[in-house]
């Protein structure tokens, strides 16, 4: 059964006078993997950061329009609550350097001062790390600092940290752009498994990656959502000339 989890209605973002995301309308279903691709500066990351209201943290940044999460406009909700509800993974792995691997996974609880019993915490840590395909590698060094891990492991730790908060939706902002090919493939592998439980929106400038991991792809160009379709359809038979040009490498 398909049900909408995120819906953007006439969504616009600005940096000062600079109109970066223009009138985007998009509807994303539960348990889908959505790739958002487009050339640099096309507004894909800005759009992503609008969904969990990270965009507005940048000075001068504003937005207009609605983003509905389960039918409710996130801009009518408390920003803190929205961010806690939606997971996010960034371009560069950013585990908390002052916390151990264990603490990093439950950082969402620790830093928010949410009381969780030791037993429950142990369960959350094991479950999240297992889901992030990292448990086997780190189960004997849970109390070491997270920054001692390799880049790919750190990124999976960040994914575990997001999963631990039990979000329905996880946003990925070019999650593999700072990783080597092997780490990249392990993270991509993970997307397939995460899909069972979560909805994933992945911003990527890597077309092959979009083709490999996503069910549907959104193509952004100059701040507009040009095309949003089944990934296969889009890569074999795009409807819009601009998509065609991008896919065939006429511009990047």
């Amino acid at each position: 059964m398909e049900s909408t989890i995120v819906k953007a209605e006439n969504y616009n973002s600005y940096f000062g006078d600079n109109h970066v995301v223009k009138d985007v309308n998009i509807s994303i279903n539960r348990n889908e993997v959505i790739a958002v691709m487009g050339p640099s500066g096309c507004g894909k990351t800005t759009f992503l950061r609008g969904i969990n209201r990270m965009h507005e943290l940048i000075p001068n940044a504003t937005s207009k329009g609605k983003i509905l999460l389960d039918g409710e406009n996130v801009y009518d909700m408390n920003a803190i609550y929205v961010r806690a509800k939606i997971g996010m993974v960034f371009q560069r792995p950013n585990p908390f350097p002052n916390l151990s691997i264990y603490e990093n996974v439950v950082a969402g609880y620790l830093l928010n001062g949410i009381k969780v019993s030791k037993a429950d915490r142990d369960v959350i840590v094991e479950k999240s790390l297992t889901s992030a395909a990292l448990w086997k590698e780190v189960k004997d060094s849970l109390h070491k600092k997270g920054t001692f891990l390799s880049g790919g492991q750190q990124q999976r730790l960040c994914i575990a940290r997001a999963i631990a908060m039990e979000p329905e939706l996880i946003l990925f902002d070019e999650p593999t752009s700072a990783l080597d090919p092997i780490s990249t493939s392990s993270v991509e592998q993970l997307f397939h498994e995460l899909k069972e439980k979560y909805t994933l929106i992945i911003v990527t400038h890597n077309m092959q990656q979009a083709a490999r991991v996503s069910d549907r792809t959104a193509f952004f160009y100059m701040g507009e959502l040009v095309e949003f379709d089944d990934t296969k359809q889009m890569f074999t038979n795009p409807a819009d000339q601009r998509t065609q040009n991008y896919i065939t490498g006429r511009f990047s």
Partner: protein
Amino acid sequence: MEARIGFRNTKSVIFKGIIVFFAFLITLPLIIILLYIIKQGVMNVNWHFLTHVPAPVGETGGGIANALVGSFIMVLMAAIIAIPVGMAAGIYLSENPKTKLAYYSGLCVDILQGVPSIVVGIVVYFWIVKPLGTFSAISGSIALAIMMLPIVIRSTEQTLRLLPASLKEAALSLGVPYHRVILKVIVPCGFAGILSGIMLSIARIIGETAPLLFTAFGSPFLSTKITQPMESLPHLIYTYATSPYDDWHNLAWGASFILLMFVLILNIVTKVITRKWKVQL
């Protein structure tokens, strides 16, 4: 051509020799001061010296217990005042570097750092000592706190500014409110840097005499009352070194030695802390 290259090499060697020489030269003043004070001071230091108040003129013996206790109390109070204020201001400056307030308060911090310590002493005298009608340890602490502030503020600011923005984003994206992001993530990650700034500022004020001349004043008795005049190490050195008695000169040398050791140890501890507690980013 070959001769030309040879000449250039010689120039390089000479240049390198010059910078090595000066790098070595600057260690000399410290070594000379250290050796001299150790030579003059170390034989005056013993248990009696550390646990007794100065003897009246004409009597032998006596120590610097009043100054040790006084310095400890006043520096502690100054730290209690300056650390929270300085850290809060430093956090603001690093978080909002582009605001007008940050520009002007940053400017004030720089100017405050350049205000001569004796001026700070005089100002505190008119603010606090005069209205209260008596010299007091607390007024001395306030003067010292003002001396401490710029160092704490700038070290906090500079440490926190070096932390990557991604760290803050990581916490914010988990729905952590701003104050918790700062207190639980940003400050702990910059803790080593902030702490070393605090230690250095303490090392700086522990030897300050001028701000205390008109505030804590000094006292030949062991006192722990913060509303009363209190002795301090640098002030004791100042009064005893300018006295005409040899006994008192020895006391001053001993006190100098103790003070120098404090500063030395503080600096070494700071170095160790920064190396050990530095968060690996």
